[in-house]
């Protein structure tokens, strides 16, 4: 807990004890080996103290079996550490499919967080107990690193890249968030707190907000859909694919590029295509998209990505297909608000729901107006919004 002296960090995520277990294992092995070696050193120094100025001790060249023994045993021990650490590393770097999607943007010297419901906060991260949370992080300026000691988790936050971190809080409380990659003057002030709450309290908090949070009333997907209109992406990216590639269902899939190469349409690719559209042009299209460098913020790009994700994608990716033409320009904004006010439902355990996508993908304004286009991709929004 913040402000309480301790010799051991809080265990507040489902992986914390696993990290501690391997830590304690290595601690025991190394204490045993070090004490053994050091006891031998001290014993030899005491026992074989020089007795006379001219003493010549027995000369021993070496011993091959011993050399082999003290190479092979440490090798075995470190291989165990490696294997165990590798399995844990995989677990730490592989978010569960049903995790809630949070977006985090680091900048000198603050953390900006956006919840799946659209709620935003700065230097604070409220999360529900017992829900896997997946963070997608990027930086607006230098490299930062997002560290929650109580969760035993950390990831660098790199400008121009998306990093992913996940955790499942297992204990209610407030814990430190630290920036651990030196990022300039106020590096030590780039701190915050993560607040783990029981689900009902979290839902309450989502409604009533907190001092440092803003409820825009827009989920990232809704905001992305709005930006898609505002930035006039929709002019070319239509469902007919005449002017520009169709974005429906593209997320997470492999796309063919000019020159015969392929690329996976993941977050990084979409980001690159927005900022540097001529870098990887989809086969069959002209490189005539303008760059949006300097016109959209990192937050906005994340929202656009969230929107494109919501248009459907590769198998395994949960989809909530929405046709861009289903969204009317900004006057539809108000329609979004009532939808997101119900956002707490987004935090319900996905496993309990019939629809696999509930929990990660959040309601979009389209469903309330049920554009004809959405019919062909039966979407689960209704039960979320109503």
């Amino acid at each position, binding site marked *: 807990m913040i*402000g309480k002296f301790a010799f051991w960090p809080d265990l507040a995520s489902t992986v914390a004890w696993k990290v501690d277990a391997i830590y304690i294992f290595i601690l025991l092995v190394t204490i045993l080996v070090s004490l053994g070696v050091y006891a031998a050193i*001290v014993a030899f120094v005491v026992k074989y103290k020089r007795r006379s100025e001219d003493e010549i001790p027995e000369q021993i060249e070496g011993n091959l079996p011993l050399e082999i023994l003290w190479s092979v045993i440490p090798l075995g021990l470190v291989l165990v550490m490696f294997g165990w650490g590798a399995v844990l590393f995989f677990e730490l770097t592989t978010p569960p499919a049903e995790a809630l999607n949070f977006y985090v943007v680091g900048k000198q010297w603050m953390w900006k967080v956006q919840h799946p419901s659209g709620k935003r906060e700065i230097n604070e991260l409220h999360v529900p107990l017992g829900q896997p949370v997946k963070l997608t992080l990027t930086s607006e300026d230098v490299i930062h690193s997002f560290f929650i000691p109580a969760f035993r988790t950390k990831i660098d936050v790199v400008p121009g890249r998306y990093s992913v971190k996940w955790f499942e809080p297992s204990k209610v409380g407030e814990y430190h968030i630290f920036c651990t990659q030196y990022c300039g003057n106020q590096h*030590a002030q780039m701190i915050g707190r993560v607040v783990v709450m029981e689900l009902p309290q979290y839902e309450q908090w989502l409604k009533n907000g907190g001092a440092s949070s803003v409820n825009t009333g827009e989920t990232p997907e809704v905001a992305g859909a709005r930006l898609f209109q505002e930035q006039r992406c929709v002019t070319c990216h239509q469902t007919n694919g005449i002017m520009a590639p169709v974005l429906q269902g593209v997320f997470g899939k492999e796309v063919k590029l000019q020159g015969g190469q392929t690329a996976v349409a993941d977050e990084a690719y979409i980001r690159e295509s927005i900022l540097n559209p001529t870098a990887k042009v989809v086969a069959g299209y002209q490189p005539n998209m303008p760059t949006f460098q300097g016109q959209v913020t990192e937050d906005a790009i994340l929202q656009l990505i969230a929107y494109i994700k919501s248009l459907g994608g590769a198998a395994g990716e949960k989809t909530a297909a929405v046709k861009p033409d289903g969204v009317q320009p900004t006057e539809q904004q108000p329609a979004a608000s009532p939808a997101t006010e119900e956002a707490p439902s987004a935090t319900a355990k996905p496993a309990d729901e019939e629809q696999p996508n509930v929990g990660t993908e959040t309601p979009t304004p389209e469903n309330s107006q049920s554009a004809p286009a959405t019919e062909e991709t039966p979407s689960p929004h209704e039960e979320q919004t109503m």
Partner: protein
Amino acid sequence: MSAVAVPKHEEAPALEIPSQNYLNDGYSIRSWLLTLDHKRIAILYMVAVAIFFLMGAAFALMIRLELLTPAGDFMEAETYNKMFTMHGVVMIFFVLIPSIPAILGNFLIPLMIGARDVAFPRLNLMSWYVFMLGGMLLLTTAIFGGVDTGWTFYVPFSSMFSNSNVILATMAAFTAGFSSILTGLNFIVTVHTMRAPGMTWFRLPLFIWALYATSLIQVLATPVIAITLVLLMLERGLGLGIFNPALGGDPVLFQHLFWFYSHPAVYIMILPGMGVLSEMIACVARRRVFGYSFVAFSSLGIAIIGFFVWGHHLFVSTQSVYAGLAFSLITFLVAIPSAIKTFNWTATLYKGSISYESPLYFVVGFLGLFVIGGVTGLFLSTAGLDVHLHDTYFVVAHFHYIMVGGEIMAFLGGLHFWWPKMTGRLYPEFWGKLSASLVFVGFNLTFFPQFLVGYLGMPRRYHTYPPEFQLFNVMSTAGASILGVGYILPFIYFLWSLKYGKVAGPNPWRAKGLEWENTTSPPPTGNFEHTPIVTEEAYEYSHLPEANVVRASTH
């Protein structure tokens, strides 16, 4: 013994400094600044490194004072950031890297292999001047207000965001790097071509093996950091987009390039210390180092494997998970040669004849700190655990145990061991033992709490910190003051001994080795009166040398 014993002086106990030695071969400034004698160049390095050490220590003192309390009440964040950056840059590029190779290596390599000098004496002097040029650039950096990027110079902070003297500081490191390359090159050629008759590769003292491995790294890895720093300067100075993502660059690429040098550089810093330890432990125990060839090849093993582990600095840098695992595995492999060395040193003491003079204190102190530093590396190699430990004080404690507890302890021990050879005088034993003990106690008190506070999550490079971490930081600062006394003492009694110290005689420890047995203390300018002919293995303590006898040649 069939050696032709040539008493250099009268048999009488009253020893004298030899009338002709490298120290009294000219007293003018010019005779020092234009010297081609490897021993004098070593002294030039020693003076320079001592000054840089005091400078780096002053920065460390400032850091520890600020961290005494959780709030930033002693200095501004900006000042603090410059303090730890300057501390790192000075200590790494201007103290740790040159300490043992450029001082003890320069002094001892020709003496140990029976040569009159290094292969390229002029290049050797030039290395010192290049080093000093780097040092001047560093001082200029400090005078113009310092640099605040951390010694790692990570982009894009260093290239696009920092308002401090990044280009000057990188120029300083860049220049010092050339000195390091030239010294390494010189040593490699010296060891290959200048060995005395009979000095075969497997008769070489283990210090030579260690420095040979070190030199290989210096020559092969340093150019990479040079190129990387040039790229950084181009990006910062001319706005070329190499690392800056806003210009299409890749900031993680910088980290790969940086650590491709800087991880091997860790072995540039610790391998020579291991070499010093092998020499000292053989003499202290009067025993041939147990498993000589295993210790020799483990140096090469560390040097080679050390080139393939850099990615363990990038486990959480968005590097691919599979790359992370490969680097984790290879990193674990470095533990094996290090363990082999430690076990062999321990076995060397077994059934030895252990002298309780000052060098033993440094040997025991080194082993204690090095073992802790080594085993804590295992925690950081474990990929899944490093996710938590990365960039916390656990890492700070770990590398100080290796770099300062290991290398600086070995360097101090080496100075205490070879001081009589370098100056012809003995320092007071009591003070030597006291200094070693204070360093050992002070060091543990300073850095052990940092493991604990690191696991609790305290990040490094923090100017302020949450109050619950204060106890550990107070312990650290208290320990640092003891450590400081331990480091200052040798400055005093070494200087004192130059005038008042007891005359040492050629071989006060009755140690084996050409530098002890075949020449005076201090040695003459040409090192040996007669070129030594080597007929025995290293550390052949079954023929115990006399303290006050200089051999004409071996057997």
